[in-house]
């Protein structure tokens, strides 16, 4: 049999968006620090992909959560740990030369807060929920909201599109996390 080129969007999307390597280069443009695909487009495509997969249409943030949630399966959990909430977001990294927002999946478990990146499959950030403090800070981007995390090892600036949901998830996960608006 001869291979066939299926020019359906599903096949192309799978390749173009998932695999077509995310690159991190000095010259790459960023929007308010976010590399690569525009947020609205990411949203449109995420919902498209989910729609294709399930044959249904849903509002984008729900479907994109599902899309990104499919990456979560690789996140290693400790015994007794459960993922309570996950959402696409970023962390600001300014170590070394490249200062940028690094994308990943924020996972709130009943024990930890983790930013998980599917490729190469690692947690870029994690901290126990106990003694984590979360501050609302002014945002530099219209569709995302930023938070400052203060935890025993230091501070981190993070960004998500649904700050309220994230905070609510933290509140559900533990009574030990403090959320403070600035």
């Amino acid at each position, binding site marked *: *049999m001869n291979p066939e*080129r299926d020019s359906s969007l599903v096949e192309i999307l799978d*390749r173009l968006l998932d695999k077509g*390597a*995310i690159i991190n280069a000095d010259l*790459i443009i960023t929007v308010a620090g976010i590399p*690569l695909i*525009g947020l609205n*487009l990411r*949203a449109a495509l995420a919902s498209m992909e989910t729609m294709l997969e399930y044959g249904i249409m849903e509002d984008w943030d729900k479907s994109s959560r599902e899309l990104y949630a499919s990456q979560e399966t690789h996140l290693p959990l400790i015994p007794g740990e459960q993922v309570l909430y996950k959402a696409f977001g970023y962390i600001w990294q300014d170590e070394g030369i490249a200062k940028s927002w690094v994308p990943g999946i924020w996972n709130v478990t009943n024990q930890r807060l983790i930013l998980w990146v599917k490729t190469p499959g690692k947690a870029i950030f994690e901290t126990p929920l106990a003694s984590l403090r979360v501050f609302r800070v002014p945002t530099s981007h219209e569709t995302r909201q930023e938070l400052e995390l203060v935890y025993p090892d230091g501070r981190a600036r993070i960004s998500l599109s649904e700050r309220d949901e994230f905070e609510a998830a933290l509140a559900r996960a533990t009574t030990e996390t403090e959320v403070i608006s600035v």
Partner: protein
Amino acid sequence: MAEEARYLYSVAKTAIEVNLGEIGIEKKEVFTIPYKDIAAVVHSSLAEPYDTKDRTRAEEWILEHSYVIDQAMKRFESVLPFSFDVILKGDNSAIAGWLEKNYLVLHKNIEKVEGKAEYGIQIYYNYNDLAGKILEDDPELKGMKSRIEKESKGMGYLLQKKLDARLKSLASQKAAELTNQTLGKIKTLAAELKMDDKKRKADGYKGMTLLVSYICLVADENVLQLGETLDEINRREGFRVRFTGPWAPFSFVDYRELS
């Protein structure tokens, strides 16, 4: 005012500066920016990502992006595909500088995929067909089936249950065997092989179960033989193979070392 930038489709193995015509996103003119024996395939853009809430427009962009990569694959020996919306700041000389800086990483990737392309292989099976075939080929099970027809209702029911369970286990055994055999053969023909854990079922395979899904990097000279191997499976009762490609080697490039 956004600064000057280049939208990157791919990096190809070519030393030639060439204009590929207005084949880019929204009919942008696509051209190469060479450095040594490699070149960036780009169009001139502003330093802003393509962004839209309009799904149809997003689809068009994606297809256009994919089209440029396909054209590059036809034209050049070896093509490294890039994801959508990879935009590099600067003019042609800045991009050439970027190629120079990342030459080793890009070249390593090019060497890896040279003369090869990415293919998708999905093996589906239809349980009823497979079970029917097993029943037909197995005298013992066949005898069991004819006994069921003669037995009393209660006894017949029990025998039927037993037969169903036996068929089910034989079918899954057979499917597993075939998967292993096939995997062995595919491995000898593919330069690299990955399991596609998404296992998304394609249209037109209704009522069938997706047994396994692979993504392989295959040398051009092995494609025919791979097709023949897959034919052997495709001919078996109850099985169907979906063989797609050639794709640009999206799943086999590694850009983690790019800077």
